[in-house]
């Protein structure tokens, strides 16, 4: 049996995090598997952070930013978009299916979209099962439990 998957969610302060908040205040239920980590902008996230999340035992990584044109810092999400595509190419080279990584544009008012995205993504990860990396070593003092 697959115990509950661990998903790390990087959410940008101005949009996606607000979207999660909206979902919360409106009591829209979404899977508790996602551990939300607030960042100031999706443009702050670099591929190494996603790689580190997988290394530390995440089964899936989600990144949420503002819709194109809405970035609080003007072009941060455009930069992230280019980086995200790079990550999609990079992960399979290390035996991690592309599907375990997802990014989405969610505004602060889109609580429903946040809820739906989390449900979908959790289902995807559940259907994929836990991430067994063939690389044997895994940190025993995992910060994600």
């Amino acid at each position, binding site marked *: 049996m697959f115990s509950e998957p661990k998903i790390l969610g990087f959410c940008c302060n101005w949009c996606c995090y607000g979207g999660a908040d909206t979902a919360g205040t409106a009591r829209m239920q979404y899977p508790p598997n996602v551990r939300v980590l607030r960042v100031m902008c999706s443009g702050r996230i670099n591929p190494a952070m996603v790689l580190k999340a997988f290394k530390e035992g995440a089964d899936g990584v989600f990144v949420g930013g503002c819709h194109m044109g809405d970035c609080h810092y003007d072009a941060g999400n455009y930069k992230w978009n*280019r980086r995200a595509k790079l990550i999609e190419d990079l992960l399979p080279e290390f035996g991690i299916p592309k599907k375990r990584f997802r990014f989405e544009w969610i505004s602060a008012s889109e609580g429903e979209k946040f809820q739906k995205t989390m449900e979908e993504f959790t289902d995807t990860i559940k259907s994929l099962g836990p991430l067994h990396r063939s690389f044997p070593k895994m940190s025993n003092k995992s910060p994600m439990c």
Partner: protein
Amino acid sequence: MESQFLLAKAKDDELAVRGECGGAVSALFKYLLDQDLVDGVLTLTRGEDIYDGIPTLVEDSEDIISTCGSLHCAPTMFGDLISKHLSDMRLAVSVKPCDAMAIKELEKRHQINENLIYKVGLNCGGSLMPITAQKMIEVFYDVDPSEVVKEEIDKGKFIIELADGTHKSIEIDELEEKGFGRRINCQRCELKIPRNADLASGNWGAEPGWTFIEVITEKGKKLLDGAKKGGYIEVKTPSEKAIIIRGKIENAMIKLAQKYQEKYLEENYPNIENWDEYWNHCIKCYACRDACSLCYCKECDLEKEFYNDEDGVVPDPLTFQGVRMSHVYFSCINCGQCEDVCPMEIPLAVIFHRMQKKYRDKTGFIPGVSEELPPLFSPEKE
């Protein structure tokens, strides 16, 4: 600028005899030093034997003669030498296509000032690892490698010359089929004529005793005109036929490279299990990073505490090579240095090259050739 072809050779007799193809490149360097247009010339000189090339800074034009001759068995790179140690000097440098690519990428990153350097390109069909070359000469040529006094690659053959003047040659294709010959990354390389330098010179299409030069930039043209006026080189126009022959050689080599790309990056590409085995060998010596032509950061992410594992364990490939890849792979010029220096023989250039090709297909960015930085660094909203 419209490209221009010409044949050149050194007027100085000694340079003409000792240099490759009439010594035109050596003569250009001599001209630059004599006229004080540069402070130094960075080029390879022969070390102990033909398998040993030492990057040397020549500051006296009398010493140029010692740099003459080809060294195919000493794969070195000049890019990081310039950016780390010679960035404030007016330099002329002899560059293989991959050197020119590295220099161009470093120029874009403000590590090298392009106004300070003359890049005299050398056409390159590929280089050999010194160890491979020695083994190959022993096994296939039946010659003691230490007795070889000169080597040359011409018309698809690797030719060696012995002390008594005898030549022996074998088709490179034949050697490569048996796992010898050029370095694997060179076999995959598509840039044979360095059109990212100021001049591109070589023997393809040239008459014996002459160097075929393609003028690429205004700077290169000025250099040639100056050297001609100063009486350092003799110049003539190549025949139509010579230009066609050169084009044919280039095309044939590019086609072959594409075939090898198919072979090494697709058909024979290691699978995930193979890669895990490779990564398991990693001793985290950082040699790949140190040798990388593109890495220049003073503070390297790989040494940051949060990416590090406990001491004494194999580093997790995700946060070691993965992080390194995420920093540079899109700009990888396939120079093969990471693979050459890896003490555990991890085929790093293969994964970097394959990933770069994917990025190139998506974005059209060709490292070392495109004028801009990779689109990843763009501030544009696109």
